[in-house]
C-alpha cells in the first residue's frame, strides 16, 4: 500500500545540511495498522508526511497504492491527498467552524459532493464517532477526546484508503487515549483502511499495531511484527521503549534477585500457550519447584502473551528447561 525506497531527507539549517532521514526503506501492507515509534526528533513525523507529500524526500521514492507519487504536483497531488486522511496531536480543527462544518470541510474542498450528500455523510460520520449530538458546537466547547473524534470523522470524510495518525493520542489522558485507540482499531477493521500511526508511546503500538518500525536518529533501527519487537527487543532504543513502559530498571531488579536461590529464567509465552497450565505440568513432570519473581499477562493487539520471571530450584532444572522449550515457551536465562 505504501512503500518507501532508499529515502533520504536533509534540511538546510543556517547553511548547514541536517539529515532528518537516512536510508529508510519500508513497506506498509494494505489493511494493516503500522506503527512508527521513536523519541522526538527521530524523524518519524517527517516520514509520515512523506506519504501525503507535505514533506518531500531529498532522495528516494515513495509509492502509494502501486503508484510512484514522489514527483506528483498540481491536481495529481491534491487528488492523492484526498485519498489519505490525517489526524494530528493537536487536532488542528478550524476554530471558526462548527463540528458539522469541520467534518464537511474536506468534502466541500473536493467539490464532488452535493449538499445533500455532504449532510448525510456528516451525520453518518458523527454518529460513528459518537458525537451526533455535538454537531452544532464549536471545537473550543469540546474536550480533547471529542476534538480528536471530530478529527477522525473529518479524516474519514472523503472515504480515504489510508489514515495517517501523527501522535494522535499524545495530548490525551490515558482513558481518552484508550478510547481513541479503540476507535482507530475498529475503523481499521470495519473499513479495511490502512493505518500508519506515529507515536512515542509503546502502549499505543501494543494496543493497535500489527507491525512496527522503531526509529532513532533518522534511521529505522528495528522493525517487524509488533509482538516480536515488543517481546524480544533487540536494539537499545526498542529496549528503552519496552522497559520504560513497564517502569522497570533492569539493574535494580538484578540486585533484588541477588539473594534469591536457584536458576533465574524469563519465560515468554504467546498465543494460546499463555493460558495453558505450563508451570503446574512442569513441576509435576520434572520435580522442580518455582517461585514467580515478576510477571505480566496481557495482550498485544489481539495476541495474548505472558512474561514471567521465575527462579527454579530442586528437581532436574535442565530437563525443565528442555521441557519448556518443547512447549513453545521462549526461555531466557537471567542467572545460572
Amino acid at each position, binding site marked *: 500500500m505504501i512503500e518507501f525506497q532508499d529515502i533520504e531527507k536533509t534540511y538546510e539549517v543556517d547553511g548547514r545540511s541536517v539529515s532528518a532521514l537516512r536510508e529508510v526503506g519500508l513497506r506498509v501492507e494494505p489493511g494493516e495498522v503500522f506503527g512508527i515509534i521513536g523519541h522526538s526528533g527521530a524523524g518519524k513525523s517527517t516520514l509520515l508526511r512523506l506519504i*501525503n507529500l*507535505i514533506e518531500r524526500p531529498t532522495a528516494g521514492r515513495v509509492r502509494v497504492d502501486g503508484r510512484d507519487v514522489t514527483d506528483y504536483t498540481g491536481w495529481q*497531488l*491534491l*487528488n*492523492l*491527498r*484526498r485519498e*489519505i486522511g*490525517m489526524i*494530528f496531536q*493537536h487536532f*488542528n*480543527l*478550524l*476554530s*471558526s*467552524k462548527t463540528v458539522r462544518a469541520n467534518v464537511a*470541510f*474536506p468534502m*466541500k*474542498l*473536493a467539490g464532488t459532493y452535493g449538499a445533500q450528500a455532504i449532510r448525510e455523510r456528516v451525520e453518518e460520520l458523527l454518529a460513528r464517532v459518537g458525537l451526533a449530538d455535538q454537531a452544532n458546537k*464549536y*471545537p*473550543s466547547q469540546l474536550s480533547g477526546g471529542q476534538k480528536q473524534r471530530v478529527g477522525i470523522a*473529518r479524516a474519514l470524510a*472523503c472515504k480515504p484508503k489510508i489514515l*495517517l495518525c501523527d501522535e494522535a493520542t499524545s495530548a490525551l489522558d490515558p482513558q481518552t487515549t484508550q478510547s481513541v485507540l479503540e476507535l482507530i482499531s475498529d475503523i481499521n477493521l470495519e473499513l479495511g483502511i490502512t493505518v500508519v500511526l506515529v507515536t512515542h508511546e509503546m502502549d499505543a503500538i501494543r494496543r493497535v499495531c500489527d507491525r512496527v518500525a522503531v526509529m532513532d536518529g533518522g534511521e529505522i533501527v528495528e522493525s517487524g511484527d509488533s509482538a516480536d519487537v515488543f517481546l524480544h527487543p533487540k536494539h537499545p532504543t526498542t529496549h528503552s521503549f519496552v522497559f520504560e513502559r513497564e517502569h522497570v530498571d533492569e539493574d535494580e531488579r538484578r540486585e533484588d534477585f541477588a539473594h534469591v536461590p536457584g536458576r533465574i529464567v524469563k519465560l515468554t509465552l504467546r498465543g494460546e500457550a499463555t493460558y495453558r497450565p505450563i508451570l503446574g505440568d512442569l513441576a509435576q513432570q520434572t520435580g522442580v519447584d518455582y517461585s514467580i519473581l515478576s510477571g505480566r499477562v496481557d495482550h498485544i493487539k489481539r495476541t495474548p502473551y505472558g512474561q514471567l520471571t521465575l527462579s527454579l530450584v530442586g528437581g532436574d532444572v535442565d530437563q525443565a528447561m528442555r521441557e519448556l522449550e518443547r512447549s513453545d515457551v521462549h526461555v531466557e536465562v537471567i542467572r545460572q
Partner: protein
Amino acid sequence: MSELLPNVRWWEIGVASWDTVLMVGGSLLFIVLLGLPLGVLLFLTGKRQLLEQPALYGVVSFVVNVLRSVPFIILLIVMIPVTVIIVGTSLDVAGVIPPLVAAGTPFFARLVETSLREVDRGVIEATQAMGASTRQIVLGALLPEALPGIIAGITVTAITLVSYAAMAGVVGGGGLGDLAIRYGYQRFQTDVMIITVVLLVVFVQLLQMIGDRLVLYFSRR
C-alpha cells in the same frame, strides 16, 4: 446653551461631522478592498509560507514601508496631482479619500499579514493534507480563522483614519478636525475646539466599541 458656547454653529458642526464620517467610511471601504489582498500577498510570499517568494516579498514590503513612513500631511500634498487624476479634484471630501487610502492601505495590509501569521500552522497543514489548493486554503481556512484579528485590524485602521482625516483641512477637505483648527485654533474659539474634540472622542469610542463587539462575535476560541 448659546451663552455657554457663543461661537458654535450647530449646522456647521453637523456638516463637518458628516464629512468626517464620509472620509473615514469611504476610504475604509477602499482600504479593506485593497489592503486585504495585499496583506494576503505579504503573508503568502513571506518566509517559510505557502508561496515563499523572497524577491516579491522584498519589493512589496519595501513599498509598504515607504508609504507608511511618509507623514500623512506630506502625503496629502505630494499626492495632489495623483488625486486630481483619480477623482477629478483635489478638494473637498473626494479629494481627501485617495491620500487616506494611500496611507491606510499599507497600514491595514500589515495588520492583515500579522493576523494571518497568528493562524495555527497546524490548521494550515491539516487543510493542506485534505487536498486543498492554495486558493482554498486562503479562502476556506486562513481568512475565516483570522477573521477576528482582521476585524480588530479594521477597527484600528478606522481610528487611525479619524486622526488622519483631521488634517484634511490642508486641502480644503473639511470635517471635524478642520473645524477644530480653523475656528478653535486659528480664531481662538475654544468652545468650537471643545465640541469638535468631544465629538471626535465619541466617534472613536463608538468605532472601538463596534469593533470589539464584532471581534467577540466572531471569536470561537
